[in-house]
């Protein structure tokens, strides 16, 4: 990989175990500012686990132990003086399964900015986030309805809007399009392109076309190990590893 910029986020020899069973093994990778990094790999290979370690969401799982270092702008994300709340303000997340709050659509998006006293008019912020997430037209007349009445795909876009409303520096997306139809997926991909101007995005996806379409860098994980990491073009067209080639061309297993 030829990038000589300073990475925004960097994992160094990260091993993450659940009750002693390693799910992520000795992974080192750098995530660059205002780029889209895709993490691909078979189910259960540790993608979500690795992603969660990047904004300290693994803190909430009781039996997790983590070794190695994760650096954010060259300082330890897990340092003793670091407030995890501050971390999650800068590094937002969209989860693998849609998890709206059992509250109104408006409250779902507005709650984060409100408790953190983000500047500006909250209505403007909510509208902007919902527009970015390609949901505004469907919900603009029923912002006070419960978010639980939305369809699965709409809920997922709501969760994207909720993350966007916080205007973090980095957005971690765990399969944000898994419940979306091709039209919404295309709109989310357009959104990612747009967001790249200002945000750094890490996306986990099972969709090879999506990874090759939207990402600048691609990391291929297999049973917890980082098999290959590089420019998306290279990973998809000239992979160095046989296993990567088998996976991206759908010939594995």
């Amino acid at each position, binding site marked *: 990989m030829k990038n000589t910029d300073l990475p925004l986020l960097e994992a160094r020899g990260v091993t993450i175990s659940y009750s002693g069973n390693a799910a992520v093994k000795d992974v080192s990778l750098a995530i660059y500012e205002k780029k889209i990094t895709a993490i691909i790999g078979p189910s259960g290979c540790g993608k979500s686990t690795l992603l969660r370690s990047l904004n300290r*969401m693994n803190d*909430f799982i009781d039996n997790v132990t983590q070794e190695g270092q994760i650096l954010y702008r060259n300082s330890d994300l897990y340092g003793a003086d670091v407030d995890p709340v*501050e971390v*999650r303000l800068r590094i937002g*997340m969209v989860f693998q399964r849609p998890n709206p*709050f059992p509250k109104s659509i408006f409250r779902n998006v507005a709650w984060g900015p409100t408790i953190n006293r983000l500047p500006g008019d909250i209505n403007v912020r909510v509208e902007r986030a919902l527009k970015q997430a390609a949901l505004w037209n469907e919900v603009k007349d029923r912002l006070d309805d419960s978010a639980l009445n939305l369809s699965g795909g709409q809920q997922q876009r709501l969760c994207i809007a*909720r993350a966007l409303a916080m205007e973090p520096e980095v957005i971690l997306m765990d399969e944000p399009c898994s419940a979306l139809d091709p039209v919404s997926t295309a709109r989310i991909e357009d959104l990612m392109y747009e967001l790249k101007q200002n945000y750094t995005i890490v996306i986990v996806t099972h969709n090879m076309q999506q990874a090759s379409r939207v990402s600048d860098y691609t990391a291929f994980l297999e049973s917890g190990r980082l098999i290959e990491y590089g420019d998306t073009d290279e990973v998809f067209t000239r992979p160095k590893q046989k296993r990567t080639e088998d996976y991206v061309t759908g010939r594995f297993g």
Partner: protein
Amino acid sequence: MAANDLTKRPALGQRSASLRRRHLLAALFKACCVGLTAAAVAVLGLLIYQVAADGLPWLDMQFLTNFPSRFAEKAGVKSALFGTLWIVTLTALISLPVGVLAAIYLEDYAPPSRLTRVIEINIANLAGVPSIVYGILGLAIFVRFMGLERSVLAGALTMSLLILPVIIISAKEAIRAVPASIRLAAFAVGATHWQVVRAHVLPAALPGILTGVILALSRAIGETAPLIMIGALTYVAFVPAGPMDEFTALPIQIFNWVSRPQQEFHELAAAGIIVLLVVLLSMNALAVLIRYQGTRK
């Protein structure tokens, strides 16, 4: 492959023997459930009918506004009714915050240590301790040691002790039932632990917590033993004006009447039971209302 050969399967209208057996089993199970439910309802209906037949003739405004008396015609439940309302209200005010905060602490904040486990197990054990034991404790601590005498406050504190384990356990269950994904979503938008609990965990758990609290209070309303223990079995011919006043309560009044030899007083007791039932049902209705309000939002 033979088993999958569709041409060998019977026509759709003919059920196989095994399927018929399974349907029969399902019907049998349903009949059992209906039968047992009906039996329980019948016993309850019989009880209510008996009580109503004895008590209803005595139930009038006078019964509610008169104080207890030696003469059945003039006897009423005013002091007992107000005593019960005082006890329930004070008990709720004391046990609700203590119980819910304890449950939040145990579920959300307590480190998963041996001490925490010991505390949790003991709370579960306390729920099974006979109520008279709480009466003895209340007598020793509140009535004597703290010098509260036979006051409403001493009674409410004793009742709070009695129902706290139930409240804590049910509140813990309700809090635990809040999906982890909602907590994580809240943390992911930069919330602190308390903000997550306050804005998401408590509102989602509230219906369950309230159900537990109301059920526990309903139990407290019917309890007689601990109140007798702390000395509430006296003739009280006034309505408590404050938490330090003496009191009597509906179950005690009922107990009192039942233990007299005269038939009239037994019928008075039945009337008292009806009043107690009405108080209970109103509380349950209140719980339903609160839950409904809570889930509509």
